């Protein structure tokens, strides 16, 4: 039996939740949450933690040199550094419209990397 501590981020309270699990990471019990949202958060965070990735990519011929981008859905947390390395390699041409897909199936996640602002061509 092992224990994993998780701090809930669903509200400012920040409950310290303990997930007790066996060696195959099967959850035995979840303790320390004070609302159902906390229990649900701990479950997801323990089994498959995900995050929205945001960064910038280079732009050619735009009124800005960098385009802020985001994944239009959550990707697995352990992939954050891979995502960062991949986004460094991308260069696109202006103009760009907010929501434009910059790279589909980003890093093989099935999630798209999209533009988070408009950039005009100059």
């Amino acid at each position: 039996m092992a224990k994993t501590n998780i701090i809930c981020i669903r509200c400012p309270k920040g409950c310290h939740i303990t997930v007790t699990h066996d060696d195959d990471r099967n959850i035995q019990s979840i303790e320390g949450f004070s609302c159902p949202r906390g229990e649900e958060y701990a479950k997801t965070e323990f089994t498959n933690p995900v995050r929205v990735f945001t960064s910038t990519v280079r732009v050619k011929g735009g009124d800005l040199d960098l385009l802020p981008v985001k994944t239009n859905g959550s990707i697995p947390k352990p992939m954050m550094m891979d995502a960062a390395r991949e986004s460094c390699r991308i260069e696109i041409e202006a103009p760009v419209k907010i929501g434009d897909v910059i790279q589909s199936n980003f890093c093989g996640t099935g999630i798209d990397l999209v533009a988070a602002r408009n950039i005009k061509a100059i």
Partner: protein
Amino acid sequence: MKKLSYDIVVVGGGPAGMAAALEARKAGVEKILICERGGKLGGILEQCIHNGFGLQYFKEELTGPEYATRFSDQVEASDIDVKVNTMVMDIQEDKKVIAVNPEDGLFEVETKAVILAMGCRERTRESITIPGDRPSGVMCAGTAQRYVNINGYLPGKEIVILGSGDIGLIMARRMTLEGANVKGVLELMPYSTGLVRNKVQCLDDFGIPLYLSHTVTKIHGKNRVEGVSIAEVGPDRNPIPETEVFIPCDTLLLSVGLIPENELSKKVGVDLDRVTRGAVVDEKRRTNKDWIFACGNVLHVHDLVDNVTEESELAGRAAAGYIFGTYAPRKNPITVKPGNNIGYVVPQSIRYHDESQKVIRLYMRVRNPQENVTMEIKDDKGEVLAKFKKDIVEPGSMVNLALPTMKLTEDMKEITVSVAE
């Protein structure tokens, strides 16, 4: 000198200025000018490329640029005039605004009302006096954020961050994703001053240590930062000499607080609050000058842009109400006072009758963290007007309490907000 005439001049084109201008326009004010110092609308949101904005206002999670675009698109589609690269130099008693930009040169705008939405700036190394030389590599976290996210420069590779405010936490993650090694975040207080979700997602996710009750005691290096001395601090917040250790690094980022930019406000005689360092305002966000309104971070530093938007819409409607003569003043203005464990409350007074406003939201920060508390709003006789239960209150999270306007009487002169003892 070029002379222009408007009904409202909004100083600042960030989230506050845009929301105030749009709302004043909706309320029927026809000639509105936004003066923005930067090259584009959007303010600080331009460089806040992370997500988490808009959860309250739009009920979805947006990045800073996306949140800003929702408003700048509306401004661009409207007949609100915008002058970018424009610095307001002076707001004069005779309701004239003096500004300068490369296109118009120095120009004068005659106006009926002014909305202050200049935002805030970062506290610097000088404001916290860290001993040592003046090498390059010491900068405010928000400045580093601009270098990385707008200009595409990496300010350093081995980073120490002082201050666990949200910008410091956000930059710890951002620098890590850009390939830098963040050695740790130091916080003078015994608790993190940023939002919990930022501590978890920006530090814990990347294994970046947070040192509570710690500070930088010396900066080493002649031309470039070579390292910092850090030490634990005692309950008096003074460093404990025997705990001092040297940490090699090439960059020190400071996230040690924000100061509302009120130079223009001071010059024209707007009264400032000693604690917020922003204007003293009533529930309409009106200052002691009846034609000048203030909203957003220039009024008090917010944690969430959603609150800035709501406050600025209120100020925009109020400026319109002032121009059209909509609001009737109360017999007595009611002073709003911070009581037990409350650092400040905005607004500082309630002055008007407004049938359309069923509740008045009071925004405040507590001085010290507390759990399972009751917050109370009391009148001058000690009667409780409203009570609110809170699981947790902490200085890093602004609290807002809705005071029903029906609870206010004509004779009231003062109300006090406090955490019940």
